[in-house]
């Protein structure tokens, strides 16, 4: 992915809202050093400079914009993206709610008209043969049918940018059977038919499917379920935030996964990560946002 970004031959300007944590600063520094980003660190300049010094980073590599608090920093980052002074907005040490409030502001925010705000992530796993995209572990708690369709389209679009023309998208549940106790299986059946009829394009879609049928080729043979995804999923779509979030965190904790992700539905890419993510993950997020910009 980083190669693809470097091939673009551009430096994307990343505005970081409340750049007060060392991990984020180090990650953005890596991107600047690698040559595909410029950084605008927004926050209390004295604190930011102090962090740079203690991390042994040259603060002159960054532009620093002094702001008093997290809310103002978020609004400033968004404002810069709106008027073209930045290409990408990144969340620093500010709460997701505060940050997204600035992004979603009706007058001064970054939302595309009528677009859904949603998050797509890409996980690199030593135990899976390719990059695994998932949605939505960060923004939408209980997506309804229309939201699930929007999520699917965002994820397909992201996979396309990575060069995957017809990504296999698995609609995840606890089983592959239709079940009246699991309303999501109803949404999934509808989406599959829409994909069959070309109403959701450029993908091979199936669901409900459990994780094994989605990602494990042996399971397909054992269970004998005919599915075009065949244990070779590119994208996993989850029925809720409470299922997708623990899933990716479990992968990071137990399977040494690295996650990069992006907010979709905005005019400019928005990078959103949690404090507990590794620096490498943060670096990949920045690279991903540059790819999608």
């Amino acid at each position: 992915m980083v190669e693809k970004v470097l091939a673009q031959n551009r430096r994307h300007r990343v505005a970081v809202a409340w750049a007060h944590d060392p991990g984020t600063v180090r990650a953005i520094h890596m991107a600047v050093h690698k040559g595909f980003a410029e950084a605008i660190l927004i926050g209390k300049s004295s604190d930011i400079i102090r962090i740079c010094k203690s991390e042994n980073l040259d603060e002159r590599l960054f532009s620093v914009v002094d702001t008093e608090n997290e809310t103002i920093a978020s609004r400033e980052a968004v404002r810069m993206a709106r008027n073209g002074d930045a290409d990408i907005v990144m969340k620093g040490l500010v709460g997701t709610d505060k940050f997204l409030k600035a992004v979603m502001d009706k007058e001064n925010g970054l939302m595309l008209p009528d677009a859904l705000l949603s998050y797509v992530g890409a996980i690199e796993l030593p135990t899976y043969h390719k990059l695994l995209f998932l949605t939505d572990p960060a923004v939408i708690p209980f997506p309804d049918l229309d939201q699930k369709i929007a999520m699917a389209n965002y994820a397909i679009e992201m996979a396309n940018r990575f060069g995957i023309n017809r990504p296999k998208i698995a609609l995840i549940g606890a089983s592959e059977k239709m079940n009246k106790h699991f309303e999501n299986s109803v949404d999934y059946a509808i989406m599959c038919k829409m994909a069959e009829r070309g109403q959701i394009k450029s993908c091979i879609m199936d669901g409900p499917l459990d994780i094994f049928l989605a990602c494990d080729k042996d399971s397909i043979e054992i269970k004998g379920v005919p599915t075009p995804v065949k244990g070779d999923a590119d994208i996993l779509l989850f029925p809720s935030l409470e299922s997708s979030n623990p899933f990716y965190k479990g992968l990071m904790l137990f399977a040494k996964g690295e996650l990069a992700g992006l907010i979709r539905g905005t005019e400019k890419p928005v990078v959103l990560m949690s404090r507990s993510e590794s620096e490498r993950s943060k670096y990949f997020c920045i690279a991903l946002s540059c790819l999608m910009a």
Partner: protein
Amino acid sequence: MVLKNLNDLRRLVEGGPRKKLALAAAQDQHSLGAVVKAWKENIIEPVLIGDESGIQAICASYNYDITSLRIIHEPDIEKSVETAVRLVSSREADILMKGKIGSSTLLRCVLNKEWGLRTGNLLSHFALFEVETYHKVIAVTDVAMNIAPNLKDKIAIVNNSVACLIRLGYEMPKVAVLGAVEMVNENMGATLDAALLSKMNQRDQIKNCIIDGPLAFDNAVSLESSRQKGIKSEVAGDTDLLLMPDIEVGNVLYKSLVFFAKAKVASIILGALVPIVLTSRSDSEQAKFDSILLAAASIK
């Protein structure tokens, strides 16, 4: 084994003993005439239950020779239905047919909890059409019984119909779930049900058939039409069973086929212990005969 026309059903009744048909409230020329004809053509063996003198009078004036037929005398209409139903549940008859009695009264007896013909399944109407402009017979359900079936009802209706088609010799009948359009539209319940039924079929939760939908009527019966729309479907153009979204469109289709396309049709009720023939006075002689033929052919 493809049934090209309704006459092909005769192949299924040849060889082996004739199935027994119990005609309830048999003092009725319309049903009696059809039963006698089917008997003479070796399709079924009738048992006539009803007012004996009434039965004999009709047969005399219409010249039906019923000398060797079994008649069970029961002048009371409702009791004659009970007798007919009990005959079936005690395995002395294989088909139940309606004579001089309203459909709802007959069905009430069929659904009797003590001595009726309940199986726990939903009852549904099954019609088999022979249309000159289609390459084989085509089944349509449910055009007369279930008014506004929900998803659960549709599953039952499909299962009833597919089981019947299997008994008629089909291996993997193709089922088209009809809608006004072939795309899924969240405002059109029929298209949503179609998506759910398709997925259940793909997951082998509805078995022994291939289900696709939503399909508009032209997509279902015309391969050319489905190709023009760019529809990829195993069912389009080669449908064996049309699942109607509700009774209104079903009934209109049924009657359009009969009046405008001059189609021949056979109808039975499925879901009870045995097939039930519920022909009415407005049905043609041919339709009554073919319904009896279908009932007999559909029993294994």
